[in-house]
């Protein structure tokens, strides 16, 4: 019953988020800087924040039998959806008004992913190890900041395209300045880099301490580790783009988008690839699979 309620709530939130996304997208058109539309969009995003937060708390306190905030993949997605929607609202106030155009579709994808994770591929996490809790938390929060960086990257490319085609801002003023978007991108990449570093270190500890995955077993060149390392490298470049000036501007924006895509590919590699080496598969299962008593009957 509780899973059905979660799914229904997620469907409603996804619908609200997509409606907010459509309204945000409509603002791209010429002369469509309607204040009332913007207010509706903010209200819908606010409802998404509140709804996702309440659902996350409900699942953490009641559904997962005690205070277990990250009991399953859906909880992780709910956590970052809440924080991401809150970040969208916060950034709107900081004169980067155009971010919602690119961030709200990502929020919709997150929530829709939550529906799938709850209704079709539900699998509770093993949270008995503290390392695992840290790993999961840093991975999900890292994903959150990479989503912000990617949305900022897309916004940067959009604003730059408008400038190169000499298109003026709409009547309500510019969507954002390249400078402010670049700053947001760098901050998000820096935070994402720190969180991803924690995730890699805790992942390393988990892998090396697992019974069947000792160092030397070839796990380090697995798709998951290679992709995670690539994302880590990308975030390192983006956060230092003011010094690594070759990547400054549009290149950093593209790198942020590529970083998110690679991070999502890392999730896919960790959860969906069927034919991993035996010892690696065991290691990944240790990370992402739950103990038998936590599995849903």
């Amino acid at each position, binding site marked *: 019953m509780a899973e059905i309620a979660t799914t229904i709530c997620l469907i409603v939130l996804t619908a609200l988020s997509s409606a907010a996304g459509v309204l945000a997208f409509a603002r791209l058109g010429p002369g469509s800087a309607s204040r009332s539309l913007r207010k509706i969009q903010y209200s819908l995003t606010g409802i998404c924040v509140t709804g996702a937060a309440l659902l996350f708390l409900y699942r953490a306190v009641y559904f997962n039998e005690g205070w277990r905030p990250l009991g399953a993949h859906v909880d992780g997605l709910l956590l970052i959806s809440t924080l991401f929607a809150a970040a969208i609202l916060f950034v709107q106030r900081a004169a980067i008004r155009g971010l919602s155009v690119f961030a709200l579709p990502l929020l919709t994808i997150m929530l829709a992913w939550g529906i799938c994770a709850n209704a079709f591929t539900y699998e509770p996490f093993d949270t008995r190890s503290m390392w695992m809790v840290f790993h999961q938390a840093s991975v999900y929060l890292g994903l959150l900041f990479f989503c912000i960086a990617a949305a900022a990257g897309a916004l940067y490319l959009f604003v730059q395209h408008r*400038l190169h085609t000499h298109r*003026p801002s709409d*009547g309500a003023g510019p969507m954002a300045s390249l400078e402010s978007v670049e700053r947001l991108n760098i901050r998000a990449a820096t935070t994402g880099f720190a969180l991803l570093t924690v995730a890699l270190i805790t992942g390393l500890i988990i892998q090396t301490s697992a019974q069947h995955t000792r160092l030397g077993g070839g796990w380090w060149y697995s798709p998951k580790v290679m992709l995670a390392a690539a994302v880590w490298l990308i975030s390192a470049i983006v956060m230092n783009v003011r010094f690594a000036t070759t990547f*400054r501007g549009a290149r950093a924006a593209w790198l942020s988008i590529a970083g998110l895509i690679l991070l999502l590919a890392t999730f896919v590699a960790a959860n969906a690839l069927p034919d991993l080496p035996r010892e690696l598969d065991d290691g990944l299962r240790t990370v992402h699979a739950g103990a038998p008593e936590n599995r849903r009957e």
Partner: protein
Amino acid sequence: MILMIGVNHRTARLELREQLALEGDRLDAVYERLGQMFADTERVIVHTCNRTELYIARPAYTPPTAEQIIEFLSGFCGVDRAALQAASIHRENEQAVEHLFRVAAGLDSMVLGETQVLGQIKRAYEDAHGRGVVGAVLHKIFQTAISTARRVRHETGIDSGRVSVGSVAVDFARQIFDRFDDKTVVGIGAGEMAKLTLRHLEGLSPEKLWLANRTPQRAEAMARSIGLDASRGGPRAFDDLGQLLIEADIVLTSTSATSPIITAQRCRLLMRSRRNRPLFIIDLALPRDVEPSVGSMRNVYLFNLDDLQRVVSGTYAQQADEVEHCQSLLNEAVSVCLHEVRHRDAGQLIKQLRERLHEMGAIEQQRTLRKLEVAEPRDAAKIVEEHSRRLINKILHLPLSAMDPRDRGAPLSFYAAALRKLFHLDERPPQQGQADKPSTESRGDPNVAAPKRTDDLKMTTGRD
């Protein structure tokens, strides 16, 4: 009658507008001199950076005329009369009121729908009101202009556009940079449009604003004209251009060079030295100062005059509906305002006329009563008849004495038409033998004599 004489950014060059700037002591002096010369007038002087306009309300057929105002201004400001005549605009009555309403609403501004001009008009009106030179007519017109401008802004989207090259440049700068207090603006060359655009950029309060010109004096003059604070920049030698381009975040070029001063090759080296910091280049020069291929370089945002003008015209096209809407609101407000002004004027006139006639009547009444006290009863009829004759002559004396045919400047035909209209006098010449009969009956009655012509009426008047 309402009269407007003035110059604005469309009709006069900046130098002439600067000469006609009426501020501070000059404004006091102009008000004083106008008061001495044309005491029986209401007057408001509106002065902004783009316009100097005099609004005058005066009785019809009394000075000043537009020519007299131009004569006065050219003498006072030391401007060539012919040049001022050519650059000035002159509006009367409804057109003058409509012009004021358009100015207040920002429809006549360089930046369509700008709000600053409304505050300037309000201050000009309050200043004139404080000097006691605003009467019922200009009071009504300015009050209505201000309230209508507010209504127009509230009901239309006229102030949401950006329609000058400078403001468009600022709009693009805001899409590139978030803050400007750590940015450097470099102006290269001179020119009217560059000056206006630099004023807009100066309004962003950049950390530094440097001006480079092959002629240092021109750079200094430019710095003065845009009101640049010496602590925040000033003229720099043209030889420093390479270093300036490395320091700059925003570059505005407007030189008369015949070949580009910023080539793609130079810019490539420049961007390396700048560590790929974004560079916003505004090229207002013709021929262009910056090679077009510079615009396709990474982190360089190049806008030339055509690019900016296209945005300006595009904005005007987008605003066309709003302008039309504004104009219809203004037309309605002008019509209502003028009706109220005329109604109020007519009301006061009628009141004055009544008072004047009652005054005459009272004097004659006293005179007649004194005569009746000492007269025999049989003379009473004669005294009353004399009373009527004297009163009529007194009433008609002033209007008819204004119709002296020897006065070549008098608008006789206008007065004659007014008299015919007001007193229902027939236009046909009087029939022989009927000229001396009074026209006391209504027109169209064949038994009633035709009224006297104005010249005849003149002959009947006279002092006792």
